[in-house]
């Protein structure tokens, strides 16, 4: 039973090596890079990128990124896996001149390592055969004697009985049951031995195919396929439900991979992709969540009362800007339950709800001094981060659904309304893809923030996070709400008279595309800063300075200028200035 007992975790060592992880991890993941080459340069340009000068890198970086990304991992479909497996088996059949079923069992035992198998085989074939349970000489078939089945103890003629090549014969009915019980026990059935406890003879696939029920045969074959992926240290299944692909990982370093099914995950820990946060933090966070989940579940159970009218509200849209249903119509922030009107300059930045410290200073949380003291390492602090982590998770799921809706229905509708070909509406899809990716990053930054205990770094981190988050909120709101107006318009009439709201739609396009690119920049900065471990905070105070500068510029930049820089148009009636992408 040793073959299924241990499945060594492949890359534990690499995982611990944080520096290594960071070095490569600016490679970006698939989603982000499809529309943007600047997602990462080579590992060496990392520092300069954080420093801010990266327009210049873009051109030279992108080629390298593409070529290196292609080599980093390979997505294998079921067909690919089958072909590779067959290839390996045929190779072993030819080299060792054994039967196919024997080769299969041997390869499984040696975890599909052909060279190790052949080395040991040629060094001591007998020993290998003994360990794996492959008998050299078939037993002489008893000549039509009457035998007793060792399981049901009934007597049968020898042609109604079989053995695994040894001299322990069982009736076919008992074999069927024995095999079926083993297969329903899981992949351990791949090293199924003769039922006799003292006998190690391996039950091979031809035996299974001769004696088992049809669906058991299929399951057994399936286990062999699975074993090929699971035994190998270089391949892992895509963890997405219903996805049948596996990913072979070639280099070490950045573990974010994106499967054919569009699911991106961390190859190292098979959690969903969590760049820029490392695997260790993620697993700590997930463990913590599961430990606290019972508390969290009822505390956060789906709804919050409207801060004004106290009716329970279920959040059904992705962005944090909530509007209570009439007659209340109170606009508030889902995270802090404060009035949305106050989410501006006055509260110290457009969007400050990500900041635990400032939330406390504002007196939102602190009833008493004692409570504030306790909050430091308590559930309250954890709740703060967990809630934001979870909210971004749900927002992301909502956004994924919205993306599908946009792809399936809305683009066609807009084409009908405005007569614009769908190819020119791609900017909506891009916006949604960006939102989904950003929600993912933002979510994990809350896990990062929870474990960040350096005060200076925390400040810088929360600044970057806040910038990124406020950008994302605007983008999300624009994609979600502004678009609705155009979807409600009647379909264009036949006589091709110009649609009155077409110019408005043009404004919307410029705004959404602008927000998409601005948000992307913010998140790239955030990701790069976190992957660099926020190091520049401490080195000569560069980071802090730049953050100060940006803060100042953000407040100082006059409305007009910021609009021009970001390509926004007069249709944007928001009153906050836009921080420049650093």
């Amino acid at each position: 039973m040793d073959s299924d007992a241990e499945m060594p975790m492949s890359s534990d060592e690499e995982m611990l090596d944080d520096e290594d992880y960071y070095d490569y991890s600016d490679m970006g993941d698939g989603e982000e890079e499809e529309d943007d080459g600047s997602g990462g340069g080579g590992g060496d340009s990392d520092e300069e990128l954080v420093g801010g000068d990266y327009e210049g890198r873009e051109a030279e970086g992108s080629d390298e990124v593409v070529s290196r990304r292609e080599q980093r991992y390979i997505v294998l479909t079921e067909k690919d896996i089958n072909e590779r497996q067959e290839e390996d088996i045929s190779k072993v059949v030819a080299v060792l001149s054994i039967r196919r079923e024997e080769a299969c069992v041997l390869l499984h035992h040696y975890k599909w390592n052909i060279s190790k198998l052949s080395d040991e085989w040629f060094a001591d074939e007998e020993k290998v055969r003994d360990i794996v349970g492959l008998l050299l000489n078939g037993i002489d078939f008893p000549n039509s004697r009457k035998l007793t089945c060792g399981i049901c103890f009934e007597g049968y003629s020898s042609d109604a009985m079989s053995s695994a090549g040894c001299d322990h014969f069982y009736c076919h009915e008992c074999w069927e049951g024995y095999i079926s019980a083993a297969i329903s026990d899981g992949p351990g059935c791949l090293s199924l031995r003769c039922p006799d406890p003292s006998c190690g003879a391996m039950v091979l696939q031809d035996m299974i195919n001769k004696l088992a029920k049809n669906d058991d045969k299929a399951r057994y074959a399936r286990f062999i396929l699975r074993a090929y992926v699971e035994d190998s240290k270089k391949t892992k299944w895509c963890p997405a439900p219903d996805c049948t692909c596996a990913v072979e990982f070639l280099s070490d370093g950045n573990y974010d991979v994106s499967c054919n099914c569009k699911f991106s995950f961390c190859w190292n820990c098979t959690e969903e992709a969590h760049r820029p946060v490392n695997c260790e933090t993620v697993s700590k966070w997930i463990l913590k969540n599961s430990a606290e989940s019972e508390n969290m579940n009822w505390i956060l159970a789906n709804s919050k009362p409207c801060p004004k009218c106290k009716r329970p509200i279920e959040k059904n849209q992705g962005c944090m800007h909530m509007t209570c249903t009439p007659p209340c119509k109170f606009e508030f922030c889902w995270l802090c339950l404060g009035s949305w009107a106050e989410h501006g300059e006055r509260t110290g930045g457009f969007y400050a709800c990500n900041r635990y410290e400032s939330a406390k200073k504002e007196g939102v949380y602190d009833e008493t001094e004692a409570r504030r003291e306790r909050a430091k390492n308590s559930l309250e602090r954890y709740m703060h981060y967990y809630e934001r982590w979870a909210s971004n998770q749900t927002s992301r799921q909502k956004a994924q659904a919205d993306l599908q809706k946009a792809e399936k229905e809305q683009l066609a509708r807009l084409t009908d309304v405005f007569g614009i070909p769908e190819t020119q509406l791609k900017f909506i899809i891009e916006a949604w893809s960006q939102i989904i990716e950003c929600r993912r990053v933002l979510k994990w930054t809350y896990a990062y923030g929870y474990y960040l205990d350096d005060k200076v770094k925390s400040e810088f981190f929360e600044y970057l996070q806040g910038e990124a988050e406020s950008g994302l909120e605007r983008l999300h709101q624009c994609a979600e709400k502004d678009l609705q107006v155009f979807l409600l318009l009647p379909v264009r009439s036949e006589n091709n008279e110009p649609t009155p709201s077409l110019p408005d739609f043009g404004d919307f396009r410029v705004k959404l595309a602008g927000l998409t690119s601005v948000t992307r920049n913010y998140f790239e900065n955030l990701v790069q800063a976190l992957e660099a471990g926020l190091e520049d905070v401490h080195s000569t105070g560069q980071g802090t300075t730049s953050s100060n500068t940006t803060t100042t510029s953000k407040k100082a930049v006059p409305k007009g200028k910021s609009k021009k820089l970001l390509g926004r148009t007069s249709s944007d009636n928001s009153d906050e200035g836009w921080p420049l992408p650093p």
Partner: protein
Amino acid sequence: MKLLTVWKIMSKRHLVLLSTGMSLTAMSDSFILGPNMQSESHENILYPKASRARLFKEYKEVQREKSADPDIQLICDDSNIFKWTALIKGPSETPFEGGVFQLAFSIPEQYPLLPPQVRFLTKIFHPNVHFKTGEICLDILKNAWSPAWTLQSVCRAIIALMAHPEPDSPLNCDSGNLLRSGDIRGYQSMARMYTRLAAMPKKG
């Protein structure tokens, strides 16, 4: 849970068992004397035929072997062939010597493809037996089960386990710790005390 010692001992004994199993065919199938099977026709629907037939074979074998193995007495429940009890003698040169221990067997419908559930009814101080429930930690009753084992051979395996405790996979941690810390005397005197208290006839 690796009880290799028991495993080795049992595999030797098992060969003996198989040879007796072979002789079963010689026995007449027509004569059935056993728990009143005919009266419960409803059970025939509930339980698969195979397990019933196999248990019946075992029942006949037990009747035949009764005198052959003086250490084991297997008794089938009068009304239910899936419930058995066994009386086993504590092996000699162990703290269980002189005691008689009662085991309860609960046999699943899929027997012999699945192992029977066995527990001690008699209290016993042993690293691999739960002190309160009597549950037994033995590989052949869990993942190392093979349909070639029988109730009789399970009893033999349990006797072997009594003589060769496996303190590294303890269900009774106190007992396991005594052995692991090398306090053989402490272990033996505790085990002997419980044997006297629970597994021997009361004097006077």
